[in-house]
């Protein structure tokens, strides 16, 4: 039983890798479907904007309060700008927003493609000589690879803004002083390494979601199970790969 489960996991992993290889080939060898990419960017990006802004703002505020509490013990409360901005851009923004938006977008992709699969729409595409990878996977991949870093960048800015509010309103640190510290400490590399990781997260989530959608079977129940699996697998993949990608970007 355990061996069977392990074998299925390996098979699933192999299918995601194969789909990834096909998609990368398609992205680089065919003309991009601009209208479809734009449509997906609206669904994935614009429509995630509110949730991303609220999350970024509140994470930044909580971070400021918690950091002030810890730093106060060392008399280092004034360094709150540095801590909030670096934590937000290097780690919290990319990981939290990717988890949040990845779950939302991944679930949406699997539910849509899964429904298409159980209603034979994917078979219909193939029967008319269209390639499902080209029509369905590559526009979603391109759209999410563009959208996710932008969303994370917005969340980072909101997080810094949240820290600004807390500093000014609760900690008696002037806004100007806080912002000076933010810009004094924050390096291009901090933002770049955070955003760099999100490119990988976007690819992982899209491939997992598309693969699960293509494999969904048995009506609403099957689509539901596939969608749940996408959310869980995407979250675990983001959390684990985050560790290795962080190491990688520190070396670079």
């Amino acid at each position, binding site marked *: 039983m355990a061996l069977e489960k392990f074998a299925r996991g390996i098979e699933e992993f192999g299918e995601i890798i194969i789909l990834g290889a096909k998609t990368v080939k398609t992205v680089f060898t065919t003309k991009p479907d601009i209208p479809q990419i734009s449509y997906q960017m609206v669904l994935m990006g614009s429509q995630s904007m509110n949730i991303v802004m609220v999350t970024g703002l509140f994470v930044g505020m909580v971070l400021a309060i918690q950091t002030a509490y810890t730093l106060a013990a060392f008399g280092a409360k004034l360094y709150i700008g540095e801590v909030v901005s670096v934590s937000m851009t290097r780690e919290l923004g990319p990981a939290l927003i990717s988890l949040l938006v990845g779950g939302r977008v991944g679930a949406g992709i699997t539910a849509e493609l899964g*429904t*298409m699969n159980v*209603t*034979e*729409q994917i*078979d*219909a*595409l*193939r*029967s*008319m*000589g*269209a*390639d499902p990878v080209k029509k369905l996977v590559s526009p979603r991949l391109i759209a999410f690879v563009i959208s996710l870093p932008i969303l994370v960048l917005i969340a980072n800015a909101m997080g810094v803004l949240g820290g600004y509010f807390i500093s000014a309103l609760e900690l008696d640190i002037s806004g100007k002083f806080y912002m000076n510290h933010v810009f004094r400490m924050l390096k291009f590399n901090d933002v770049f390494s955070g955003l760099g990781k999100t490119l990988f997260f976007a690819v992982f989530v899209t491939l997992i979601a598309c693969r699960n959608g293509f494999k969904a079977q048995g009506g609403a129940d099957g689509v539901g199970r596939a969608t749940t699996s996408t959310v869980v697998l995407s979250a675990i993949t983001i959390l684990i790969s985050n560790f290795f990608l962080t190491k990688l970007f520190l070396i670079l």
Partner: protein
Amino acid sequence: MKPFVQCSGIKKSFGSKEVLKGVDLIVEEGKTLVILGGSGSGKSVLLKIIIGLLKPDSGRIFIEGEDVTDYSEKELLSIRRKISYMFQWGALFDSMTVFDNVAFPLREMGVSENEVEERVAEKLSILGLKDAGKLFPQDLSGGMKKRVALARSIISEPKCILYDEPTAGLDPITANQINKLIRKMQQMLNITSVVVTHDIKSMFYVADKVAFLYEGIINFYGDIAEAEKSGSDTLKEFIYGGERNGV
């Protein structure tokens, strides 16, 4: 008569369930073959194997004499230009309008947008869907969905159409309209047709030949008159609903 589709010893299993146990079948060019069979007998699986959506476990598929069994998706492209498939529940793309659904095969073939508009409008008009172009599939009734699916199958002017339960779930009047269209298509354009159904009325209307798929093999193959006289009790029961056997 030249065979357009030839299946030889087709076997297909899903898990431990063997659905097709060695199907041999010929579809003659320009004729309509009706494949009869109960629910879950593997009729739709056979259609999907013919067009290459599923691969058989063993056996060979020949299209116009060409062995296409091991063709890749890319190689199957030329076959899928010749054969179109009308899915049981239409399989219309939810995210597209009726017009875009019907236009899809032409756009895939790279036909110019002017020609696409002309041809789609013509087909929609023939099928009584003139004003439905801007609607989405969720706005359509079951009968309209079938007609849109039919329009999409004929738009690229294929040599052969595979119909999967074209009249299932329709009222008798709409079912009759679909039967007439299938017949008209075959007579006017000399299209080879394979109709999978368990609608006996439809079979009598459209069939040149009948094949009865039972327990994974072709239990009977012949024309309608032969089917009626067939010694197979199962086929008789299927056609007459048990009336003649006193069931």
